[in-house]
C-alpha cells in the first residue's frame, strides 16, 4: 500500500502531524510506502488526483483525505483498505 501526503513547505500543521501519522500508518500496514510530496514539485500529479486543499492524503493513487486526518481516522481508513484488498 502506498500513502502519499501532499503538503506545502511552511505548513506547520503538516510537519507536526506527519511523523505521528506515518508511524501510525506503518503500524497498521506492513510494507507501507509513505511519500511526502511537495505539491509544487508534483503539481500535475496532484491535480490529476483532484488535490485542491492542503494537506491532502492519497492512498494507492486515490484521494482519501482533503485535510489533515487524526491518527484514528487514518488508521481506520487504512485498515478498511487492508481488509478490502485481502
Amino acid at each position, binding site marked *: 500500500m502506498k500513502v502519499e501526503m501532499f503538503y*506545502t*513547505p*511552511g*505548513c*506547520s500543521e503538516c510537519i507536526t502531524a506527519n511523523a505521528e501519522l506515518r508511524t501510525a500508518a506503518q503500524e497498521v500496514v506492513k510494507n507501507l510506502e509513505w511519500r511526502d510530496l511537495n*505539491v*509544487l514539485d508534483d*503539481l*500535475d500529479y*496532484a*491535480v*490529476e488526483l*483532484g*488535490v*485542491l*486543499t*492542503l494537506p491532502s492524503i492519497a492512498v494507492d493513487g486515490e484521494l482519501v483525505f482533503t485535510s489533515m486526518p487524526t491518527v484514528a481516522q487514518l488508521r481506520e481508513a487504512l485498515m478498511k483498505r487492508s481488509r478490502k484488498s485481502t
Partner: protein
Amino acid sequence: MFTIGKLASLTSVSNDTLRYYEHEGLVEPAGKSPAGYRLYDKDSARRIRFIKHAQNCGFTLAEIRDLLVLRARDKACCGDVRARAVEKKLQIESKIRAMKAMSKALDQLIADCANETQPVNECTIIAALERATVATPVQ
C-alpha cells in the same frame, strides 16, 4: 479623508462596487462627514487595491476576506498566505485541466461535422449532443 467618489476614482472601482465591498465586510469607511457621507482614508485605498490584485489572481471575495484577516493578524506568517496561494493555484490548474478536456471534446465534435452545408436536423454536432456520448471532462 476621501469621499466615496474620490476613492472610486483613485482606485478605478465604481461607487456601487465600493458599497458592495462594504456590505461584504471587506472595507469600512474611516468615518462620516458632518452631513453623514462615508469618508475613507489612505488605508481604504490600499485595501481596495489589495482586493483588486487578489481578484486578478483568482481569489474570491470570501477568500480575500480571509487574506485581509491574516494580513492584520500578528501571529500569522507568510507561510499561511503562501499555503492559500498554493491552494488557489491547484484550483486554477484543475479548472484548466477541465477546460482542456472540454476543448478536446469540442475538437472531436467539430472534426465529426465535416459537411457544414447539411441542414441543421442532420447536424452531427446536434446529434452527438443529443446522444450524450461526447466525452465529458473530468472535474
